[in-house]
């Protein structure tokens, strides 16, 4: 298993798509900077009463899960589209271990990169806010935890993308699913009666990571429920993918 993880780690590192995705996550930092700047301007001209920047993470929260999901997609979809999966499968004993090794390296890379991104986003937002009382200091309740749970959200998103790509075996298919799925709760929320709308909108990954950090008014669930749902996403992604990779002809 350690051998397989080493192998998959090298594969992920030597994939160009990996670097494209990681570079693209910087867009979240840029976006947050712009948003924080415009909120700060509003504060300067209108005084308090407008939106707060807070940690800044919420301003671009929808981007990282999609991008880290793509990291997971590319970790296997390239093998399916080129056919290299066949060569890979001839070298290993059991197929599910391959999936597990891929999940491990994707989750690890996404967690580290997601965490770094969260800190970068936070510090960018605070730098733009520059001492106005609309930011969030780490001394404040939940500010640090909100940043620290972002890595977990990124890891879950990565595994989700991996699972989707394994089941669909197609890069475009997985990418479309990855963009549409996170939108679903936002759309459904409008049609559902309370408290269902609240519950459904609390199921998105950015919302769950905030609930995990016990950020006030982040959603309908507490940290324990949020953690359970996130783990549930991992299981729900990997189970069908394991069945698919084990039983399908390659």
């Amino acid at each position: 298993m350690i051998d397989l993880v080493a192998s998959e780690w090298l594969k992920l590192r030597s994939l160009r798509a990996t670097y494209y995705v990681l570079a693209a996550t910087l867009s979240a930092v840029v976006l947050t900077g712009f948003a924080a700047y415009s909120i700060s301007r509003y504060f300067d001209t209108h005084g308090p009463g407008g939106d707060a920047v807070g940690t800044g993470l919420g301003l671009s929260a929808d981007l990282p899960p999609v991008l880290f999901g793509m990291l997971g997609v590319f970790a296997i979809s390239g093998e399916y589209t080129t056919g290299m999966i066949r060569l890979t499968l001839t070298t290993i004993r059991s197929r599910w271990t391959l999936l597990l090794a891929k999940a491990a390296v994707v989750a690890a890379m996404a967690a580290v990169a997601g965490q770094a991104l969260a800190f970068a986003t936070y510090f960018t937002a605070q730098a733009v806010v520059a001492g106005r009382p609309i930011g969030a200091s780490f001394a404040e309740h939940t500010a640090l935890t909100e940043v620290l749970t972002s890595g977990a959200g990124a890891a879950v998103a990565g595994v989700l993308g991996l699972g989707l790509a394994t089941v669909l075996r197609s890069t475009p298919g997985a990418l479309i699913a990855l963009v549409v799925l996170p939108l679903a709760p936002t759309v459904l929320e409008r049609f559902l009666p309370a408290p269902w709308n609240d519950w459904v909108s609390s199921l998105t990954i950015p919302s769950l990571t905030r609930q995990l950090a016990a950020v006030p008014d982040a959603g309908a669930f507490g940290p324990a429920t949020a953690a359970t749902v996130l783990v549930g996403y991992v299981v729900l992604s990997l189970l069908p993918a394991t069945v698919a990779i084990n039983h399908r002809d390659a």
Partner: protein
Amino acid sequence: MIEVTELTKRYGSTRAVSGLTFRVEPGQVTGFLGHNGAGKSTTMRMILGLHRPTSGTALINGVRKQDLRDPMREVGALLDAAEVQGGRTAFAHLQALAYAGGIGRRRVVEVLEEVGLAGAARKRIAGFSQGMRQRLGIAAALLGDPGVLILDEPVNGLDPDGIRWLRTLLRSLAGEGRTVLLSSHLMTEMSLTADRLIIIGRGRLIEESTTADLLARFQSGVLVRSPHAARLSRALEAAGATIRSAHDAQAVEKPAPARPTNTAAPTHPSQSSRLGEEPAHARPAGTKAATHPSQDFRLSEEPVPGRLVAAGIEARAARDAGGEELLVTGLTAAAIGDIALAHGCAVHELVPRRTSLEEAFMEIAK
């Protein structure tokens, strides 16, 4: 050792492989022959545990591929050299595969040198030619130094040098006691590389025999040229042989003028086809290799083109010099030579005439 027993694969209503049974023994190169779509690749994928058989078993060293304890060290495979991710360097590609089997960096360097890609190790695979990809695929198959090698169409895209290199490599691997199974639709190449042949058509086993046996079975007479043809004919007929004038025989057997006859074969310009090399652009899509009109498929013990050209010139000189050609069936070349000597007949040419393996294959696979 590879054992395939009653192997069947159905995709929906089509039977890709049906009731296939054969063994691939260690210490030999075994050729797996069949037209495109005959079921070669499907069979190989089932042996490698990539496709699940509808019924029957395919075993490597007595167990199914998925039950091998250390798959990379027991079996190496080349399925399709194009199936690689081009963004990686050759080294990273092989190293990633090697890690999965707990194989170290030194072995990666070793196989890269063995296949002649050491200089391109740090280049992206996307820029590789088809021949380089084929070498990379072979390197991947060799990584674990496995006892069983399964190669699907390994000569595709290799240049004549590459084909000769691969042939030598495969023969030496088999010589070390390994099991080598390689598929091809190029019969001539197979006759030079493989000790045994397994021929399939429409997913069924057609023939399993040694290359020598198969060739012997399709030997069709001995071509004799002699200035004393009339006297020799009588003597040979007395010994039980059937004689035809070679020209008549050719006229009957080879009505197509574009097709090189056996006697004319050595002078044919497309000598490179002896090496199994076949330029893809010269072959219209869907045309079987065996029907390619410009190819010379006559088998020869001596594949060196220069010698063949020389032999061709000699043969033409002999023909120009006169002497009648006889096509003798029912006696071996050795017996004919002895009879000629006993009757004091000079013999200028004595050539066992074989049906080419391509022709034999076409006949078998009908």
